[in-house]
């Protein structure tokens, strides 16, 4: 029961964090058809910026300023890089963001070194939120989940209840029509790209303090975020939410499971055979935790190629 509850909470919060990063990505993807390979680089920049800023201005201002700077960077990338190569097609836009992610990672290594930096939860926030089976549950974790939920609510309300939301959604689904109606679609694209980057930056600034802030964090999360987008479906915010939580829960539960495929086969009497075969069959689920999201993705592709909540192509 303890394992179950703790894994449930941890998984949900990790999933919410994944959502914070993938929300911007899936919005940009749905709108421009561009898969932004540099998206998790914005997440990394957010963490490093917040780390540098909190030494000067304190934790809370850093958490607020860093995403704004990252959002501005996103605008620059859209305006001066992506828009320039737009005429060469989607593959080119993808490749440019890919190259940018490369450059950003190398620049981070240039400025901060090739090892994790000491970005920590401030002492004022480092207390227990509640007791769980005799152990303290950190408040900061709960706060990360709260920020993500708040963000989901705000984006959802913004998109579904305001005029800006109507314009953005119409620009996503029918850009030509929106343009014909007199809306400045390139400006909307730039805005969404900036906001998406800013959201990733916020996720980095918040999560960097809890997890480690190192030059590989973009790459580690990058692949996972793509898996979220594939499972969730093209440009679907709700799909991204469901997929994020799903992956968060699965990774959090899998780490604690010491079963192997051979153990399961033992129930049907094939345990000894499986032990002899070895290989995949005798690997513990916990050691496979990192591979489960990919397996899940393959499963979803087989059953529902357009993703859980994506539209049919």
């Amino acid at each position, binding site marked *: 029961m303890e394992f179950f509850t703790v894994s449930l909470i941890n998984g949900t919060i990790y999933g919410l964090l994944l959502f914070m990063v993938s929300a911007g990505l899936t919005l940009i993807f749905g709108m421009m*058809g*561009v898969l932004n390979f540099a998206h998790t680089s914005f997440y990394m920049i957010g963490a490093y910026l917040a780390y540098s800023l909190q030494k000067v201005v304190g934790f809370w201002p850093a958490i607020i300023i860093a995403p704004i700077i990252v959002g501005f960077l996103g605008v620059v990338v859209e305006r001066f890089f992506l828009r320039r*190569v737009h005429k060469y097609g989607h593959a080119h836009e993808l490749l440019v963001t*890919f190259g940018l992610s490369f450059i950003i990672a*190398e620049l981070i290594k*240039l*400025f901060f070194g090739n090892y994790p930096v000491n970005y920590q939860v401030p002492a004022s926030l480092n207390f227990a939120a509640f007791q769980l089976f005799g152990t303290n549950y950190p408040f900061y974790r709960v706060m990360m989940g709260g920020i993500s939920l708040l963000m989901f609510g705000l984006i959802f309300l913004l998109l579904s209840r305001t005029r800006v939301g109507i314009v953005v959604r119409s620009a996503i689904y029918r850009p030509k029509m929106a343009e014909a109606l007199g809306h400045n679609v390139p400006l909307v694209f730039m805005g969404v790209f900036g906001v998406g980057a800013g959201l990733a930056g916020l996720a980095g600034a918040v999560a960097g303090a809890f997890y480690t802030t190192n030059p590989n964090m973009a790459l580690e999360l990058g*692949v996972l975020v793509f898996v979220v987008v594939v499972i969730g479906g093209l440009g679907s915010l709700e799909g991204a939410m469901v997929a994020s939580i799903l992956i968060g829960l699965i990774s959090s539960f899998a780490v604690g499971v010491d079963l192997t495929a051979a153990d399961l086969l033992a129930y049907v009497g094939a345990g000894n055979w499986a032990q002899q075969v070895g290989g995949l069959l005798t690997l513990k689920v916990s050691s496979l935790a990192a591979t489960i999201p*990919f397996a899940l993705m393959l499963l979803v592709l087989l059953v529902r190629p357009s993703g859980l909540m994506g539209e049919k192509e």
Partner: protein
Amino acid sequence: MPGFLSATLLNAAIQMLIAALFASAFNVLAGQGGMLSFGHCAYYGIGAFATLHAMNAFSGQGLLPTPLLPVFGAIGGAVTGLAAGWFSTKRSGVYFSMITLALAELLHALAPHLKSVFGGEAGVPSMRMPAWGFTFGSAAEVYYLTLAWVVVSLALLYFFTRTPLGRLTLGLRENAHRLKFLGYNVHMARVMVFVISATFAGIAGGLLAMSNEAANYSLFEVRLSSEVVLNSYIGGVGVFFGPALGAAVMTFFGYAVSDLTRSWLLYQGIIFVAVMMFMPSGLSGIVAWWQGSKQSAATLLRYMLGWTAGTLVSAAGVVFTVELLQRLMADDYQFSLVAGRAWPAIQLFGRAWLPGAITTWLLPVALLAIGIALLKFTSARWQALNDTEAA
């Protein structure tokens, strides 16, 4: 050629050949088929391991002497390519890219746990056994072996582009819908192209295994997959030999530069983005531009010189800034700082530069400004020339 080269250069040449084959195999899928794979290291790596296991199993004896062992790389690549291709080609476009990336990551996450296959941290070692009167002990013999394999493979790949399926590959890139209406099974065609690409990537991996006599699961890192993407597009995917050219040039560049600076990967990234932004068809695009232009050779040469000069000057500015920053941010320099005292000078290019002085930073900025001005000026002139032609 090996007679004139030192051992290290010969090794670099082997690496260049392997990279060229890998990039060409990648290009069949990405450039010709329009399927941008971000996980091609999976088939390369599998090819390497398959060859290593074959080297250990057969010891270069009997029907399968050492020179033929990269065949196992091809088989390994083809089999994994079939499985991975079947999944990933269910979707197209960016989804395809993400799936290939995730599949490679899956393999990368799985490989360390499968010690019997991938040898864990230590990897799988092997030995090149003598066969056909060669000992394969010297780099020169390995070079000729690699050269032979690469030439034959490239010829086969080139021949493939002439076959009906090869022509169909271009159709997959241009308009898959139309192929479907014409009655082709698009999914099967995609899988076949994927398998061919993975097969030759496997051969490249097998050649790497032959030359290194060992491999471990680091072959499945994203780094390798991204390198082949960067190389191919820098060379230009529109032309058959473009990616091979790009891979050879960048491998040699890396070999020459990586000893000089720690920021080599940063330069690679900058080169890639610059090529994508300003030379969308890559290095081989220059040849097409030269041949396709109606201007006289002298005029073309003049403009080419203008652009080259501009590029070199701005590159000097970028290199200067990066190297200065790199030394400035390095740990030993940062620890040598004493609060309240001026920052000590940095040794760079045989001179001492004071990081506090404006002149130090003025130089790279000036270089960049001059370089960009040269490029803009040349481009504007070129534009004007073409406009008057058109009018």
